[in-house]
């Protein structure tokens, strides 16, 4: 029995290969043999942020490209990430992992499953230990975003809307491979592009490897209040779940002082995800289009163009951007679009290091 089964394998591989080839020929047709295993970050669907954006991307891919997919999400300490990736690799030709915390596991599981493609959101999937640094594998893609470009635009929006000449930035965790620092750098550069004399208060909630900073709305609230009391009237956060505390603080401060202060959201359009009671304090949000990245990764898999290592989603491909919900920044939209065009054509190069902003 066993032998027969083995003899069949090459034939099956040929069939599978041909089928995949067919899918490629059809391009973005209505059906495809590509199947995707989507592994969420902790929390899974319904987090109104990252995971939901990934879910939107995969559903669009299912509807437009005709792929099939399964979903999984890690337990709450994230200790089974590697197993979930392997589970995805067993049954699918593309495994998408949502979040930089998958980097190590994806590199390992990817090496053990060379036939399967992997795509990790928010990690470049480049092995910096090699000389020169090289991708972990030919089929291990890292989907990263030019967060600094989106942050530049909301930084410019903050400077344009600020009446006090002071704005603030709250980062979740310092030292996660410079990830959150990119937000800070772009924000500072954007604010200074509008007003070179602007004062920017900048704080991080915790330092890696302490990731509490992404789950501490209470601390974010205190920091934001201190910034508002220190003269800032607009504060931008890149702190995940802690951001709820920022909008809470904006409401508290606005009601106590009578002068309206604002918060700026991150990743998703937070005007639509926060509680209606604090909605009016969300000036704009820096959008990180995880849905676009997921969709494009699936499309690349179908077309056979998925490459190992870093793929960057920037303003030019609408991988990042800013939201206009609420209509609070309609009056400065023209200026922001100008900045956007200048970043896309390279007139403005946005720094990724806060010390150079």
């Amino acid at each position, binding site marked *: 029995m066993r032998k027969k089964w083995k003899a069949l394998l090459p034939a099956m591989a040929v069939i599978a290969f041909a089928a995949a080839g067919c899918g490629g020929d059809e391009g973005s047709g209505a059906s495809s043999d590509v199947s995707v295993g989507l592994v969420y970050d*902790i*929390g*899974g*669907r*319904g*987090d*109104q942020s990252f995971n939901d954006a990934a879910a939107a991307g995969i559903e669009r891919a299912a509807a437009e490209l005709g792929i099939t997919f399964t979903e999984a999400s890690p337990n*709450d300490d994230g200790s089974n990430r590697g197993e979930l990736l392997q589970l995805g690799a067993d049954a699918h030709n593309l495994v998408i992992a949502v979040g930089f915390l998958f980097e190590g596991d994806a590199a390992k599981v990817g090496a053990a499953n060379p036939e399967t493609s992997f795509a990790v959101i928010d990690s470049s999937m480049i092995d910096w230990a090699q000389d020169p640094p090289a991708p972990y594998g030919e089929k291990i893609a890292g989907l990263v975003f030019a967060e600094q470009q989106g942050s530049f635009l909301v930084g410019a929006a903050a400077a344009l809307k600020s009446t006090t000449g002071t704005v603030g930035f709250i980062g979740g965790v*310092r030292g996660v491979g410079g990830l959150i620092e990119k937000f800070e750098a772009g924000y500072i550069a954007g604010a200074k592009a509008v007003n070179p004399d602007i004062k920017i*208060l900048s*704080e*991080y909630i*915790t*330092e890696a490897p*302490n990731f*509490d900073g992404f*789950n*501490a*709305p*209470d*601390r974010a*609230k*205190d*920091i934001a*209040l*201190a*910034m508002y*009391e*220190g003269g800032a009237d607009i504060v931008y956060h890149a702190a995940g*779940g802690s951001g*709820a*505390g920022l909008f*809470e603080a904006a409401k508290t401060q606005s009601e106590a002082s009578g002068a309206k202060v604002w918060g700026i959201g991150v990743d998703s359009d937070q005007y639509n*995800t*926060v*509680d209606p*009671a*604090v909605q009016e304090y969300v000036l704009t949000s820096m959008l990180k289009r995880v849905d676009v990245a997921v969709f494009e990764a699936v499309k690349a898999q179908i077309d056979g163009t998925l490459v190992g290592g870093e793929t960057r989603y920037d303003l030019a491909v609408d991988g990042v951007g800013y939201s206009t919900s609420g209509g609070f920044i309609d009056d400065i939209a023209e200026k922001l679009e100008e900045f956007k065009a200048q970043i896309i054509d390279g007139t403005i190069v946005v720094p990724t290091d806060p010390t150079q902003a």
Partner: protein
Amino acid sequence: MRRVTALPAWLRWPLYAGVGIFVLTLVETLDDTDRLTSASASQSMLRWGVPVLLAGLGGLFAERAGVVNIGLEGMMILGTWFGAWGAVNYGPWVGLLTGIGGGALGGLLHAVATVLFGVDHIISGVAINILAPGITRFLASEIFTGYPGGSITQSPRVPGVGHFTFPVLAGGEVGGWLSPNLLGSLGDRDWFFVSNVANLARGLLTQVSLVTIVALALVPLSTWLLWRTRFGLRLRICGEHPVAGEAQGIDVYRYKITAVTMSGGFAGLAGAFIASPELSGIYLEGQTTGRGFIGLAALIFGNWHPVGVLGGALLFGYPFGLGLRDLGGTASHSLLLVNAVALAAIAAWSLSKGRRTNAAVACVLAVVAAAWYLLSETVPDWWVNILPFAIVLLVLVFFAQRLRMPAADGQRYRRGEH
């Protein structure tokens, strides 16, 4: 020294606080800042101290009855979920009650495991710490995902119970009449020490959450309950010498189970407080960030006494709140000098007790803190973040010899075995 320790507790603690504020005032004058003794400093001290205080009181009841409760963190997590759930559906006061109930369920589980089944206290506690986030994750996925704005990791916005500003002293309103603000005007005078005390006191009396008032009232209430009632005496016997209690006809199991369930209730209230808008205004997975364990540290610092637990909680809350509001790290830089002074005092005290090694270590640390203070302008963020924990650790190291835990704390007790 002997004379001071002979003072009654109600005089001794204010005296310690007075000395502490005096040192802060001195450092402030030297450093030309007003952060250390501002009203917002004491306000955030209270806000960050309350969850630790409640967790510590929870630990107090369990350990006074002889059960180590390392599961406080888990019970606090249950409190955040149940507190948010109750507050979202039935209003903030009900939220506090459901938070207490959720924590008490965790406490009851710990009690049944340790008291009835004789499970090791640490193992049961750790199990609860692992179990609780799983339970809340499950409950959130079943219930919060159906709410607008809710998800598997978070709740909708949680309403709060409101605030109270004391009239006359801090200028609160009484029936539309804006009372004078005595402490405020005293604080504005710039009188050395007097104005500083007034400012700190004003912070404690301005915009105080009603939950905070309840939490603070629990300190004298716990003292009274444990040391002035028959229930308290019997409960403490269970922690000191359960066999003697049994010989007196006390149902030791019942007292232990009651105490540990109450313990969970305290931790649950702490969790509900964290989820309330006083701190977070939302239930968010992972938001307790280890404050149950800090509560245990406050319990040990406080030598298993409610007033001491309050002291420990505030000692943690002060640098924590100050660090958060300290943009740029200048106030924390001033705190370095306070640390140096405190360590020097500890060195002198240790020497007077004949503990030379302790004195030498404290002396070295004092010099390091002083040198760091003199050689730098600001302190890095990581120092601001670890300072509250470092202070608690140092205090435990230097005062460990003075501490006395309940004699049968953490021991397995079986009815009729002796």
